[in-house]
C-alpha cells in the first residue's frame, strides 16, 4: 500500500516536472507522454504470451488534471471522443478494450459523457501463436480536454512487450490494476441482460444481482445512432430483474443490438457500472415484459 501511494506521489511529481512548456522536439515515443492538462501512461502486464495463453494486457492510464475532463468513446451530444489507435506488430491484434464508467454532464440542455481524474483503459492484446520475440506496441491517443475551455490534443506512446517479469513490475501491475478495477465497467454475461423494442422505447432488463443497485440508473449508449446521449431514468425491479425504459428519439433507426454502459444514477461519487452488448428482440411476436411497458415507473 505504501509503495502504491509512493508511485502515485511520484507520478504527481512527474506530471508537474515533465509536462512540456514549449513544443516537444521530435523524439521516440516513450511509455509516458503528457501535456499540462493530461498525462498518459502505458503499463504492460508482466507476462509472456505463450501458445497456451496468447493474450496479454496493457493498461492505458490517463491522469486528467484537477477540474478538467475528457470524453468517453461515445461523447454524447457534445465533446470529442477519446480515440486510441494501436500500431501492433504483424499478427498481433486488439482483442478487447474495457472503458471506465463515464459521468453525465448536462450543459444548456446538451448532454456529454465525461471522464475525470484517473481514467484507466484495460486493453487485451492477442499475440500470434507462437509470439516471435519482443513486440513494440504504439498507441496514439486523441482526445479533447475541457474545463472553462476545450483543447484537442494528441499523444503518442510506445511500449515493448512483454514487460520484464520482475517482482517490482508485478507489484506495479497489481497496484495499477487494483486502482483501475473499481472505475472500469464490468462486462455483463448475455444470460444476465435482455432488451426489447416496445414501440417508442427500448426496454432493457438486467438481472438484479448483476446490475448497479440504485433506484435511478443512467444508460450510456455506445452507439449514438441508436440513442444520442445518456439520461437518468427510474429503475423498476420485478421478478429478480431490473427494468429500464429508454425512450427512443422520433424516427430512430431500428437497432439490432443495444450496446453501452449501465451505471448507478444520482448519488455521490463515480458509480460502478456494467457493460452490456445484447440483441434487441423486436416484432409482434415478442412479448415485452409488463415491468417494462409504458406507464409510470415507481422506481420501487
Amino acid at each position, binding site marked *: *500500500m*505504501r*509503495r*502504491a*501511494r*509512493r508511485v*502515485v*506521489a511520484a507520478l504527481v511529481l512527474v*506530471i*508537474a*516536472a*515533465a*509536462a*512540456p*512548456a514549449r513544443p516537444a522536439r521530435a523524439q521516440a515515443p516513450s511509455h509516458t507522454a503528457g501535456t*499540462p*492538462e493530461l498525462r498518459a501512461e502505458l503499463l504492460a*502486464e*508482466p*507476462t509472456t504470451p*505463450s501458445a*497456451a*495463453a496468447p493474450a496479454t494486457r496493457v493498461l492505458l492510464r490517463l491522469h486528467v*488534471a*484537477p*477540474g*478538467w475532463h475528457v470524453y468517453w468513446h461515445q461523447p454524447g451530444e*457534445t465533446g*470529442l471522443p477519446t480515440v486510441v489507435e494501436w500500431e501492433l506488430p504483424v499478427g498481433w491484434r486488439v482483442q478487447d478494450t474495457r472503458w471506465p464508467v463515464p459521468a453525465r*454532464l*448536462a*450543459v*444548456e440542455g*446538451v448532454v*456529454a459523457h465525461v471522464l475525470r481524474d484517473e481514467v484507466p483503459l484495460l486493453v487485451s492484446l492477442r499475440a500470434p501463436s507462437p509470439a516471435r520475440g519482443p513486440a513494440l506496441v504504439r498507441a496514439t491517443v486523441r482526445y*479533447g480536454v*475541457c*474545463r*472553462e*475551455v*476545450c*483543447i*484537442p490534443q494528441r499523444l503518442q506512446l510506445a511500449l515493448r512487450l512483454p514487460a520484464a*517479469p520482475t*517482482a517490482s513490475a*508485478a*507489484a506495479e*501491475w*497489481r*497496484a495499477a*490494476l*487494483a486502482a483501475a*478495477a*473499481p472505475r472500469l465497467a*464490468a462486462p455483463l*454475461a448475455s444470460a444476465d441482460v435482455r432488451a426489447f423494442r416496445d414501440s417508442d422505447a427500448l426496454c432493457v432488463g438486467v438481472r438484479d*444481482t*448483476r446490475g448497479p443497485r440504485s433506484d435511478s440508473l443512467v444508460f450510456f449508449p455506445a452507439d449514438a445512432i441508436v440513442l444520442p446521449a445518456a439520461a437518468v431514468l427510474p429503475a423498476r425491479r420485478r421478478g429478480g430483474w431490473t427494468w429500464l425504459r429508454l425512450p427512443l428519439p422520433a424516427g430512430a433507426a431500428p437497432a439490432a443490438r443495444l450496446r453501452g454502459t449501465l451505471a448507478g444514477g444520482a448519488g*455521490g461519487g463515480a458509480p*460502478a457500472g456494467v457493460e452490456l452488448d445484447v440483441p434487441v428482440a423486436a416484432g409482434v411476436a415478442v412479448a415485452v415484459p409488463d415491468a417494462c411497458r409504458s406507464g409510470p415507473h415507481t422506481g420501487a
Partner: protein
Amino acid sequence: MCSPVLRLGWLLVLTAVPLAAQPPARAAHPAAGAPAISVIHGTVTGRDGRPLPLAHVELWGTDHQTVSTTRADSAGAFVLAHDRTGPLWLEFRGLHHARHRLPLYLSAPSAVALDVRLARPALLDTLRAVRVTGDFNRFARDSTAVPLARQPDGSWAGEIAVGAPGLVYQLLGVLRSGPIAGTHAERFAYHEERGYVAAVRVHDGKARIVFDPRRLAGDTGRAEVRFRDSTGRVARSAAVLAAIAKRTTRMREGFQGPASDTPIPGHPWDAEAKALQQRIDAERDDGVRRLLLVELMQVARAGGRVGARYGEQAQRELPPGAPEWTLMDAARLALVLRPTFVVARATDAADPPRFRTSAALRERVRAAADAALAAQRDEELRVSVLGHLAIMLIDAGERVPADVYLARLGAEHPDHPDTRIMQAMYSPGRALQVGKPMPAFRFAALGDSARVFTPETLKGQTYLLDFWATWCAPCIAEMPVLHAAHAKYRAKGFEILSVSADEAPDEVRRFRAGRWAMPWQHAFVSGGLRSPELRPLEVSFVPRAVLVDGTGTILAVDDDLRREKLEQTLAKVLP
C-alpha cells in the same frame, strides 16, 4: 526440492505471523491536558461489533507517505501515536473485510477515540473462476494462477504442487476490486503492499486449498464510524471537511452549466452563509472554527452574502500562511484572498463595478496575496492566487503590475495547466489585445467557400468573432448569452461571426437544427484548431472571443465577452 529463496520466504512468514499476532503495546491513556503528540485509539471490528482475526490501522499524510501503522489487538483495540498535524488520512483494514478511509484534520496535537465497524466486501455476483495466486508464482494474476474446482456444496478446492514447506496465497475471481485472502488457512498475515494473505502447510509436496464463500457472508453496506466524543473537535472537523468536499463537487458542476459566475443560480447560498455564521459564533474550539471559516469563505465564493465581521475574523484567525488555506479545495479557489473581498464587499461598495475599481481594495488584495505567496509553497494555492491577482489588476487597467504576476506565473509554475491559458489570454505579447488592430484573417463562409470574411468585409460594423466547436461543452454554455446579445443589439449594427473548428460543416448544420439556431454569420476552418488560418490569431483552444469595432480595433477579448460579461461589455460599447 524447494529453492532457498522460497524456503526463506516461507520461514519469514512463519516467523512474522506469530510476532505480528502479539497485541500492540498499549499506550498510556491520554492524560488530561494537551498531549505532546497525537494519540488515535479505539476499536476496529466487523459490522456486528465482533473483533476480527486481523485488523490494521494506517495513518498517512497528503504527501501519500505512511505516518504510522498498527495492528488491532484480539479485542479490536488499537493505538496510534504520531506527531503530525494538519490534513491526514486514516485507513482501516480487516481480514475478509472492505477497507475504509477517513479524512481527519488535526489542528493541534489531539487525543482521538473512535470505533470503526468494517463491512464485508461485496463479492462478484457469480463466482465463475476462482484462482490461486501466491508465492509460487510471485502473486501474478495471469495464467500461472491455479484454478480451483467448484464443489457440490458450493465451496471451491484444489491442490497445488509446491517445492516448499508451505504456501502463502490469495484468491482471484472473488472480488471485483482485487485479490482476497483465502478462507481456509493455518495462518493469516498482513503484507503492506498485498494486504492480507493466507498460509497453509505443504504435505507430500502438495498444498490443498479450500475456499468457502459462505465464510465471507455478512453485511456489505458501508463502514460505520463513531467518534466516542461525537461532538468533539476531531469529529466536528471531519464533518466540516466532508461538507467542503461535497460543496466543491457541486460548485464545479454548477460552473460548467449556467451562464453565470455564480454556480447553481437559485441555490440558497445566503441561507447557507447565515447558518455557517451561527455555527462559527457558537464554536469554541479554535481549530474547528478555523475550518468553519474556510467553509464560509467557500460559500462566499459561491455567491453567499457574508458579514464583514466574519471576513475580519477570518483575517485574524487565519493569516495568509495558515495551513488551512492549503486544503485542496481551498487552495484551488484561492480562498486565502476571500476574507479581503468579504470585508471590502460589505464595507466599500455594494455593486461589482465600483467594487472592482476600488484602488484601496486592490492594494489590500495584493497585500494578502503577497503575504500568501511568501508563506505558502503549495502549488495549487500559488497558481490560483497569482491568476486571481493578475485578472483583478487587468480588469482594473493596471497592466504593469498584472504583467509582473503573469511573468511570475510563467517562471515559477511553467507546467501548471492554468499557466498556458493565462498566458494565451493575458500575456503582454499575445496576438489579440484590446486597443490594437484586429490581425488579418480570412475565413470561408460555412457552406459557401466562395464567400470569405476578412477585417475589410466586416469593416464599418461592430462584430464579435466567436471561435467555437460543437464538441466544446463550454462553447455550448455560451449559447444563451450569445442569442440574447444578438437579439438585443442587432438593431444597433452588432453582428456575430461564429468560426467553427469542427471536423465537418455538417456538424454545425446539425447542431443549428437543434435547440440553438445561431441566427448570424458563420464561417468554417478546415483542420480544426490546427488550421493555419487560426495560428496567427493564437486560437489554440475554444471558446475564444474578440469584439471588434467599425474601425477594426479590438474592443474586448475572452473573459469580458463570456457569460454575463458579454452583456455588460456590449452595453458600454453600444449604449
